């Protein structure tokens, strides 16, 4: 069995839904191949984490919210549908997106094995789901693992960036907040996220987190943040060390 085939079968291998013969062949291959071994360990860890996720219990008002939504839906159905341009815009937009997709697909000549691309996409999706789910947990250790998953994402994702920003703003654990700030180096930030980080500076109760955010902004080399950092550095409510850091950062970015 070659690497390609083994990597394709790894999800079924961990889910234990694979025939015994193939299972044995995969194990033999893993003993010989470090790359597949590392991939298998990573997937195994992800699988174990999915297993460990606590089952979320529905809150008590779920029933009333559900019936509220059902009533709203029924009353919407009962209303006479209005004909306006918006009804045509959605299918027209979908058709345009399809046409663009087909065009881009035809001109894109990069030879990527679709199965490997699909597998990568699935792993990315699972990591993203793990990050988002763990960041909501009660235990600080679990939230820290959520930040770790975010750190291991290959590319930035809007939902993960939003969850990390929320963590930086309000997580009770200083260490989880520090790790979330650090994760932005890997996950990446857009203009809106950088603005949100600057806005969160004042509300931070930990000077260490404030300094970590300032250092991150310098590392990201976003010159548009220099002015905000300069005004933050003369804010008398800010601790002395943080003021000095902000002054240094503004100087670096100017």
């Amino acid at each position, binding site marked *: 069995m070659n690497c390609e085939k083994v990597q394709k079968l790894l999800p079924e291998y961990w889910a234990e839904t694979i025939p015994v013969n193939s299972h044995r062949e995969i194990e033999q291959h893993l003993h010989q191949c470090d790359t597949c071994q590392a991939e298998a360990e990573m997937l195994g860890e992800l699988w174990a984490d999915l297993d460990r996720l606590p089952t979320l219990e529905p809150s008590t008002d779920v029933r009333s919210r559900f019936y509220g939504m059902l009533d709203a839906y029924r009353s919407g159905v009962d209303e006479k549908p209005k004909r306006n341009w918006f009804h045509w815009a959605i299918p027209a937009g979908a058709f345009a997106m399809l046409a663009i997709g087909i065009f881009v697909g035809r001109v894109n000549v990069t030879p990527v094995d679709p199965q490997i691309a699909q597998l990568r996409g699935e792993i990315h999706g699972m990591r993203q789901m793990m990050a988002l789910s763990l960041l909501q947990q009660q235990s600080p250790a679990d939230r820290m*693992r959520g930040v*770790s998953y975010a750190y291991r994402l290959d590319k930035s994702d809007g939902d993960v960036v939003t969850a990390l920003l929320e963590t930086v703003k309000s997580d009770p654990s200083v260490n989880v907040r*520090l790790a979330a700030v650090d994760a932005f180096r890997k996950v990446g930030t857009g203009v809106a996220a950088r603005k949100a980080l600057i806005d969160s500076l004042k509300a931070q109760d930990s000077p*260490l987190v404030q300094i970590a955010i300032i*250092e991150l902004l310098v590392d990201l080399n976003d010159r548009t943040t220099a002015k905000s950092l300069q005004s933050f550095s003369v804010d008398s409510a800010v601790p002395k060390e943080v003021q000095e850091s902000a002054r240094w950062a503004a100087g670096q970015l100017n």
Partner: protein
Amino acid sequence: MKLAFFLIAAFPLIAQQDYAVAFSDDARPRVLKADIVNGRITVRGYSGKDAIITNESMAREPRRLDTDGVFSLTEQNNVITLNGGVRKQANLTIQVPHRTSLQLRCTNCGELRVEGIEGDIDVNTVNGGVRLINVSGSVLAHSLNQSVTAIIDRVDPNKAMSFSSMNGSIDCTFPTDLRANVRMRTTNGKIHTDFDVRLAGGEAIRMDRGISGTINGGGPEILFKAFNGSIHIRKK
């Protein structure tokens, strides 16, 4: 659902008193949460089943029975929660089963000390140091103004850890076979380690941007963050 509730300050004249609180549900992980404003917390692992709480400060002087200063101690779903009032000085020694997760907060601590615990340990202090001795599992430890010291026997291979201090140093001792991805950053201190850290970033390593690398091939993320202090990462 079992709920135990005690008002410790209702017994101010009793000489040093132990309070035993049972964890009610063996099926769930044990968790101890404590949040104290003034005083000291020591948590020790022992081979019993209950949490035994000793408040030494109560032995010295009588306390007013005003509600503002009363401690509360509750148990629910295997989570014991202890909260200290603002005016009270709590010098607490808490014994819990070895396998218990901890979430401890102390603002004006002499020292927050944890010994012989296996679990997820999360400790935060403002004016006191943190000292963790012979602990296992995962650790998140932060002190704003003092040092963080940890001697870790075994590391949970699936969990990330973090150690941080603004004005103190960080001194951590790990098992020799530690596998980890480490990220270290201190602004005004130095970084020392006797582990072989394989540095990331190739030839262009910017010390002012912190250092990251792998130990023994890599593993869970461990973050070390200081500002005015140094970082020591030692082999056991």
